[in-house]
Each structure stands twice: as structure tokens, then as C-alpha cells.
């Protein structure tokens, strides 16, 4: 791809990317995700600091089932289980099965919370753009179960770590419509 082609391809990817919440029933290769994640990190990280973040990728049915049971344990803490527990189990298991992959982004607390959050966010945005080129969609998820101690314990998040976000990933079946964005010019002040 020439530089000019890359420039217009990137512009198109940035504009056309949509947050995707429902996915095609198509297998997602963990190897592909790893390759894209490596390139995403390359676009963000510098030698200034050792990265203080890491990832857990749930891509196999077994891995996702393991995570599902951890989530359900987390909800049962709250007593949500009293109401139709089997139905809830099934709904949760179905929902998780429908999402081809989960990428959990974990950051170690090194006293620079904002910088760490920024780095992880930038890596995930690069990943999202690279994935979109393959018709793989993503959405960020910051649901409350992520902050529950039993969930964190279950997926191996340490005392001095926190979950920044969980990216849901999968092939996009249908691209949702979106509203137009406010022109950048309207949000720009010249000093």
C-alpha cells in the first residue's frame, strides 16, 4: 500500500468504525488478535517506561465458560441469584457465548493513573482501527461486575492492579447507523 493509499484507508477506517455489540457467528482467531495487538502497542508505547498494563484474552469456549462462571459468582454475591437463578445462568451463558472474544485490559497502579489509562486507551483504539480493517468490530465495556473483588480475584487481577476496560470483539454482521458528529471546528478555540 502506498503512503497515499494508507492515508485514505486510515481516514476511512477512523470514520467508518462503529461500536459493535452484536456479532456474527464466526470464529475469531486469537493469533490474529495477538498480531493486531502487537501492532497496536507498537504504535503507542515508547521506551520511556516499562508498560504497566497487561491483557487477558478470552477466546476459547472453555476460557469464556470459566469467565462466565466467575461473573455469575460475582452476581450471586449480591443476591441476584434469588430470582430465577437457572434462567439467569442461561441468559448469561448465552450472552457470553455470543461474544467471540473478550480482551480484558489490566493496569498496574504505579501512581500515574491518568497516564496509564491514556496508554491503555490509545492501545485499544489502535487495536480497534486495525481490527476494523478485518471487519472485526469492538465495543468497550465497563460494567459493574468488573469492579467486584470476586471477579478480579477469579481472573487473576492483583491487589495493586485494576481492570481498565473489557473489549468485546467479533466479526461484524451488520454495521449500525450512527448520528453525525459535531464538527471539530465547533469545539476548537484558537489562542
Amino acid at each position, binding site marked *: 500500500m502506498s503512503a497515499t493509499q494508507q492515508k485514505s484507508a486510515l481516514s476511512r477506517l477512523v470514520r467508518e468504525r462503529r461500536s459493535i455489540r452484536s456479532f456474527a457467528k464466526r470464529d475469531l482467531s486469537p493469533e490474529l488478535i495477538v498480531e493486531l495487538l502487537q501492532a497496536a502497542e507498537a504504535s503507542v508505547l515508547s521506551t520511556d517506561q516499562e508498560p504497566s498494563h497487561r491483557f487477558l484474552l478470552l477466546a476459547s469456549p472453555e476460557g469464556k465458560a470459566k469467565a462466565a462462571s466467575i461473573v455469575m459468582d460475582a452476581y450471586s454475591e449480591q443476591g441476584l441469584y434469588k430470582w430465577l437463578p437457572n434462567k439467569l445462568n442461561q441468559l448469561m451463558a448465552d450472552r457470553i457465548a455470543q461474544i467471540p472474544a473478550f480482551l480484558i485490559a489490566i493496569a498496574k497502579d504505579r501512581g500515574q493513573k491518568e*497516564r496509564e489509562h491514556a496508554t491503555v486507551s490509545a492501545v485499544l483504539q489502535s487495536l480497534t482501527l486495525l481490527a476494523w480493517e478485518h471487519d472485526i468490530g469492538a465495543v468497550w465495556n*465497563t460494567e459493574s461486575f468488573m469492579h467486584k473483588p470476586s471477579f478480579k480475584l477469579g481472573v487473576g487481577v492483583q491487589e495493586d492492579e485494576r481492570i481498565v476496560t473489557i473489549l468485546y470483539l467479533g466479526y461484524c454482521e451488520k454495521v449500525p447507523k450512527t448520528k453525525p458528529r459535531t464538527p471539530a471546528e465547533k469545539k476548537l478555540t484558537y489562542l
Partner: protein
Amino acid sequence: MSILSLFREAREVRRFSDRPVSREVILSILEDAVWAPNHKLREPWRFIYAEGAAKIKLTDSVDARKHPRLVDTLTQAPVVLIVTSPVNPDERIDSDDFGAVCCLIQNVQMLGWAQGLGMAWELADYSACEELLALAGVRSDERIAGILGLGFFDSLPEKPAVSGLDDRLEIW
């Protein structure tokens, strides 16, 4: 045919050429960048643009001993773009908005890189830089998500060797 190489080769730029940067170039990058993901379409970003005399004023307002890296970027880059996100008492909204603005900044990084424009992304605790905040017009209900130094460059900085993903990726 892929943009993979664009991402693999991208890097921070801290030394820039004299080539003038037009407002149109930056604006066209921002018009793409605002397509960053953001919750409930809150579009939580705001941009403050400084160049020339205005940029010098901002630079002089910062104590180089406290923020050497920032002063270096402010001095070297032809254009400075401060990007803010709103402060929200709801921690989740606050955090979501900050993340969205960071996604936008990463869009700026990559869109700029694709046209030979380099970027340095400064982010630290600037809450004590009262003069800078006042000059830039950053409100008390805003936080700085990045002070970006932007410009064309002649010589490509070395690609940093970063720690591999192997030790930091677990797959279930």
C-alpha cells in the same frame, strides 16, 4: 494490502522541521479524529490551539524544572493542541469520557503520522500550572487529557524497542 505497517512504524516525534503547519491540515485531522468511540455520543472533547506568539506565552508560563518534558515539547513543536475532557462527579462517566478523549488523541497521532505529521503527547499532573491553565482557558470543570506537540519532521526518530507482549498477555 494493509495499514498494519503504518501502525508498526508509528512513533513519538519530538523534533520538528521548519515546514509551516497550516490550520487546515490540523482541522482536517480533527474532523476525522472526532469519530472516536464515545459513550452516549457525549463527544467529551474540546481543543485549544496555539502557535507562534500564543504558544511562546504558554511555554514561558511553565516551570521547566517541574515539567521539563512539557516545556521541551512546547518549545520544539510548531503547533500545540491542548485537548480536554470534562470532570464529572460520577467516576464512571468521568473515566469513560477520559478514555474517549484518549481514543481521539490516538486517532490524531495516527492520522497525522499517515501524512508525515509527528506528534508528542504530554500528559502529567498540570493542576499546579495555574498560569498555563488560565492562559489556555482550561475551565475548572475540565481536565487536560493531553498537550500535543504537532509538526512535520525531516529526520525520522528511531523506533523505540518496546517490551514484547508475550509476558503481558494471558490467553484462556
